[in-house]
C-alpha cells in the first residue's frame, strides 16, 4: 500500500484553523452587539442578519465566477466577519439597500477582486463603510439618541425604508462635541456628553467592545500590539491638547470611549491581512491609527475617523513591515529596510 509521503512536520495542531479563528472574532462581538441593541434597538441586529446572507451570497457568486471551490472558501467565515463588522458600524436606522451596497462592495470589490482572503490590501469592511459614508452621508450619520430605541416594529420599518428615520435620530457624543467645541457653556449643557465615562450610552458600547477585544487577546486570536498601539496613540495625542485647551479638545477618556474607538482598536485595526505583521510593526501601525483618529476627529471633516485612519494605515503597512523586521536568532542586528 502507498504510504502518505509528505514533508515534515507530520502533525499539526488540532482545532486550530482559519474558520475557528473567525468564529472566535464573531463570538467576541456579542457583548458589543448586545449593548448596541439595548441602547439603539434592534436595528443593528437586523442589519447584521441581513448583511451575513448578502456577504455569503456575494462571496459565493464571485468564487463561482473565479472558478474556486465555493464550499471550501465559504467555510472560513471570513465573509461573515466582514459582514458583521460592517453591520456593527452602520447606524441602526439604515435601510436594507444601504447594507446591501456596503457589504457587497466590501466582499466583491475590496476582497475578492484583489484575490480573495489574504490578498486584500485594505480592510474590506472599512472600504465598504467609507464608500457608504461618502456616498450616503445622511443615511450614514443618522444615529439614535441613547435609550430612545425604536420598537422592533419600528426598526423593521426603518430597515424596509417605509418610515422616516427623522423621528428617532439624535446626535452622537462625537457630533455634539464637534459642534460645540470651544464653547464651554454649551458643552456643559449637553446631556449626551455627560455619561459615566464619556458620552452617554457610547461609553457602554465601547466598554462592551473592550470586553470582547480582551477575550480575543486572551484566546490569542489577536496579539495585544495593535489595540494597545491604537489606544495609546489616541490617548497620548489627546492628552497634551486637552491639557492645553480642555474646552476645544476632548479628554483622553472621552476619546477612548467614544465612537468606534474600541471596536476599531480590537476588531477593525487587527484584521491581520491588511495590518502590519511584525510585533514592532503592529505597535507602530496601531499607534499611528490612534494618532490619525484623534487628528481627524479634532480637525477633520468627519466626527469619527476609525475607517479613514485604518485605511490610511493599511496603505503604510507594507512599508512598516519592511522597516520593522525583528532581529533573527544569531544576527547582531535586525535587517531594517534594505540594509544587507
Amino acid at each position, binding site marked *: 500500500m502507498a504510504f502518505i509521503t509528505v514533508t*515534515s512536520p507530520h502533525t*499539526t495542531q488540532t482545532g486550530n484553523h482559519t474558520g475557528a479563528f473567525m468564529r472566535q472574532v464573531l463570538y467576541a462581538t456579542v457583548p458589543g452587539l448586545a449593548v448596541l441593541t439595548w441602547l439603539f434597538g434592534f436595528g443593528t441586529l437586523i442589519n447584521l442578519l441581513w448583511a451575513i446572507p448578502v456577504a455569503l451570497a456575494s462571496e459565493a457568486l464571485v468564487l463561482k465566477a473565479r472558478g474556486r471551490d465555493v464550499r471550501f472558501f465559504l467555510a472560513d467565515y471570513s465573509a461573515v466577519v466582514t459582514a458583521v463588522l460592517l453591520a456593527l458600524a452602520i447606524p441602526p436606522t439604515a435601510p436594507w439597500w444601504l447594507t446591501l451596497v456596503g457589504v457587497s462592495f466590501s466582499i466583491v470589490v475590496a476582497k475578492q477582486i484583489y484575490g480573495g482572503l489574504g490578498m486584500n490590501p485594505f480592510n474590506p469592511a472599512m472600504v465598504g463603510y467609507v464608500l457608504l459614508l461618502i456616498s450616503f452621508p445622511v443615511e450614514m450619520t443618522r444615529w439614535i439618541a441613547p435609550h430612545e430605541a425604536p420598537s422592533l416594529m419600528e426598526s423593521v420599518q426603518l430597515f424596509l425604508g417605509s418610515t422616516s428615520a427623522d423621528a428617532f435620530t439624535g446626535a452622537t457624543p462625537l457630533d455634539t462635541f464637534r459642534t460645540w467645541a470651544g464653547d464651554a457653556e454649551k458643552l456643559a449643557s449637553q446631556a449626551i456628553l455627560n455619561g459615566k465615562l464619556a458620552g452617554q450610552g457610547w461609553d457602554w458600547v465601547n466598554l462592551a467592545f473592550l470586553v470582547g477585544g480582551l477575550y480575543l487577546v486572551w484566546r490569542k486570536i489577536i496579539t495585544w500590539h495593535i489595540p494597545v498601539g491604537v489606544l495609546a496613540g489616541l490617548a497620548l495625542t489627546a492628552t497634551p491638547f486637552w491639557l492645553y485647551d480642555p474646552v476645544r479638545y476632548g479628554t483622553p477618556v472621552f476619546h477612548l470611549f467614544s465612537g468606534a474607538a474600541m471596536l476599531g482598536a480590537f476588531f477593525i485595526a487587527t484584521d491581520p491581512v491588511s495590518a502590519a505583521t511584525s510585533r514592532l510593526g503592529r505597535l507602530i501601525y496601531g499607534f499611528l491609527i490612534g494618532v490619525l483618529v484623534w487628528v481627524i476627529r479634532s480637525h477633520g471633516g468627519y466626527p469619527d475617523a476609525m475607517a479613514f485612519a485604518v485605511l490610511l494605515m493599511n496603505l503604510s503597512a507594507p512599508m512598516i513591515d519592511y522597516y520593522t523586521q525583528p532581529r533573527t536568532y544569531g*544576527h547582531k542586528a535586525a535587517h531594517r529596510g534594505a540594509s544587507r
Partner: protein
Amino acid sequence: MNARIPATTVPVGQYQNPRPIHDFRGGIHPPQNKDQSTGRPIRRAPLPEQLVLPLNMHLGAPAKALVSAGDRVLKGQKIAEGNGAVSLPIHAPTSGTVMAVGERPIQHPSGLHAPCIVIAPDGEETWTELHPLTHWRECAPSMLVARIREAGIAGMGGAGFPAAVKLNLRDGQQIEELVINAVECEPYITADDMLMRERAEQIIAGIEKLQFLLQPKATLVGIEDNKPEAIKAMCAAAEGKSMDILVVPTKYPSGGEKQLIELLTGKEVPSGGIPAQVGVVCHNIGTAVAIHRAIEFGEPLISRITTLTGDAFTEPGNVEVLLGTPVQSLLDYAGATAERIGRLIMGGPMMGFAIHTPSVPIVKTTNCIIAASAAELPAPPPEQPCIRCGSCAEVCPANLLPQQLYWYSKTEDLERAQQYNLMDCIECGACAYVCPSNIPLVQYYRHAKGEVRQQVAEQQKADKARERFEARKARLEKEAAEKEARRKARLEASKQKKSAAPGVDLAALKKASLDASSAYKAAVKALKAAETEGADPDTVAQLRTDADNLKAKADGAKAAVRDAKAGGASVADTGADKVAELKKAVGEASSAYKAAVKDAKAAEEAGAENASELRSHADTLKAKADELKAQLRDAKASAPATAATAPASKPEKSAEQASSEAADRAKKMKALKTAFNMANKQWKEASASLERAERDGADDIDTLKKTVDKLRFKADKAKEALNVLVEEAKKNIEAASGSDLKTLKLEAGRAEAAVRAKEKELEDAKRSGDQENIDVIYRERDALRREATMAASSLQSAIDEQGLKED
C-alpha cells in the same frame, strides 16, 4: 486524533538546577506521545536477512567502498573509508558476506536510490580484532580524535555530522561550555530517554572522554523535564563528576542545537556560524556512548538505539538495532503490519522523513520509526490562504517572520526571502504546526532554500567562468604586450647603434683621416720623386721626415675614426684622463719610433754597421707605439664601462677565485638554461592544452590553468635566474677587462677589418713594387694583426671565462 496523550509535563520533584538556565523564543507544546515506547526496556533487534549500508549515512561526502561482492567481512571490519575531511568510514555491523555494492532505496526525500553495501549475515557475529584504548587518558588527544573518526561516529541526534570534526580544536581555542544534548524534545521519540535510564554510566564515561578532549570550563547536560526517570539515573551516574545536569522545561524545539545552547548558556550561535565560535561544543548523548565504546572497547559504530512507535506497532518500544537493518525487519519484529500503517516516518513527527518503502535501512541518524495509523497522523487538510495572523511568528524559535517568508518563498522572490533571513530557518516545523490555514510552510522554505543554494552555486560557477575568461584575456594581452615590448627594444637598440657617437663628428674625423692619408701619400710620392731625381740627401731626408710625420698623423686620424665608431660620445668625457695619458704615451712612442727610423735610415745611407740594429730597434719601438695605440683605443672604448663599474668599487677578487666562480657560474648557467628550456616547453604545451580545454569548455580548466600558471612561473623563475647569472657574468667581464662583451666583440671585428684593409694595401704596394712603402705597410700590418689577435683572444677568454654562449 493526535492528541491522545495529553501534553502534560511529568513533575520532576524537587530537582534544583545547579545553575540558572535561560529561555529561548517561540516554541510549541505538541502532544508528547512518548509513553507508548517507554514501557519496555531496550531490546535487541533480531539479525535481519540482509543489511543495507548506505555509503552516505552521515552529513558530508559519501564513503568509498573497500569491499566488493563476494568478500567475506567480520563484525566491526571497515568496509568503506571516509572520503575527505567531512566524511566517515563504515564498518560491517556483523560478520557475513558482501552480496552487492550498488543502488538501493534509502531514506531520501524524493525516494531516490543511493549506493549501498549489502551484507548477508552469517549469524556467527565473529568480531574483527579490536584495539581498546583503556589507558586513554595517556593518549594524545589527536590520537583519540582519529580513533573517533575511524570508528565512523556521526552525530546521533539527527543531522549526522561527523563527531570528530567537532572535536578538532584550533590552536589556542578555548571551549567554555561542553553542552550535552539529552533533551529529546520531539514527540514520540524515547531513544535517548531509554538510553539514559539504562546506560547512564556509559553516557557519563563518554562525556568524560569529551571533557578530556575539549577541556571545557563547564559541562552542561540538558534534559527535558518530561523524563524524570532519566534525570534520576543521570544524576546518580554523574554524582561526583564535574558536570551539571540541567533540567529544561518541555518545549519543542529545545533539543535543537542552537536552542539548547541558548537555553543552557544564554549564548546565540552567530548566523551561518558554528557553536565553537561562541566557545561551545554540543554533542548528543548517543554520540557520547559511541565515543565511549570506540575508545574503551575499540568498537566502531555499528548499532544504535531506535524507537519503534506509532499505533501500527503492537509492541512499541526501543531496540538496539544494527545499522543497515531494513525498516521492514523492525516492523515485523514489533508487530506492525502494512495494512495498519498509514504513514511511515523515519525520525520524529516534527522533522522526520516520510518514507515510501519499508525496505529503507536504519542509518546512523535514525532515532525513531513511527508507523502511524491513518487515524493517528491523517493526511494533511487542504491548504487555505494565509491571513497573516502571525501565529507562526509567535512560535518561531529563530525569530523569523514566517508569514513573510511564506509569501516570498511562494512567489520565488528569493532576494526578498533572503533579506528576511530565510537561510536562518532551522526547519523545526513549529510554524507549520500552528498554522491555522494548514499551510505546509516548511515545505515552501525547503524549496526556497534549495533554490537559493542552487542560485548561489550557479553564481559561483558563473563567477569562476568569468574569472577564468578574464584571466585568459589578461594573459593573452600580457603576452602580446611583452612581444611588442621586445620588438620595440630591438628596434631601439638598432637605432641607437646607428646614431652612435653623437658627441664626435664621425664624418669630420673620417674626412680628416682621408686628408691625412692622402697628404701622406703625396708626401711619399714627392719623396720617391726626389730620390729618383737624385735630389740632395738633406732634401730627401727632410721629405722623408715629413712623410713619416704625415704618416703618423694619418694613423692617428684613422685611430680617432675607429675610436669614434666604437665608443661614441661618452668615451670622451668618462675615460678622459686615462685616454689623455695614453695619447701622450702614444705620441711619445711614435715620435721615438720616428726618431729611430730616422736614425736607422741615416745609418743605412751612411752604410753604418749598426744600421740593422737600429732598424730592429725602430721596429720594437713601432710595436710598442702600436700597442700603446691599441691600449689607447681600448681605453677610449671602455671608458664608459669603467666609469660605470668603478663607483661600485668591488673588492678585487683574486684571479683564482674569479675563475672558479666563473666556472661554477658557467655550470649553473648551463643547468638553468636546460631548466628554462624545459619549463618553457612544458608551459607552452600546457598553454596549448588549456586553450583547447577552454575552447571545448572542459571541466578541468581550473586544474589546467593552475598547471599552466605553475609552469609559467617555473619558466619565468628559471629565466630570471639565468638572466641574473648572465648579468653577473657580463659585469665580471667588465670588471676583469674593463670592457663589456659587446665592446670586445666590436673591437675584435674592427681589428680584423683593419688587418684585412692593411693586407689589401700591402697587395697594392707589392704590385706597384714600392719597396719602402711595402716595408712600412708590412710593419703596420703586423702591428694590426697583433692587435686583432689580442682583441680576439681577449674576447674569447672573456666568453670562455664566463661560460657565456651566444643565444
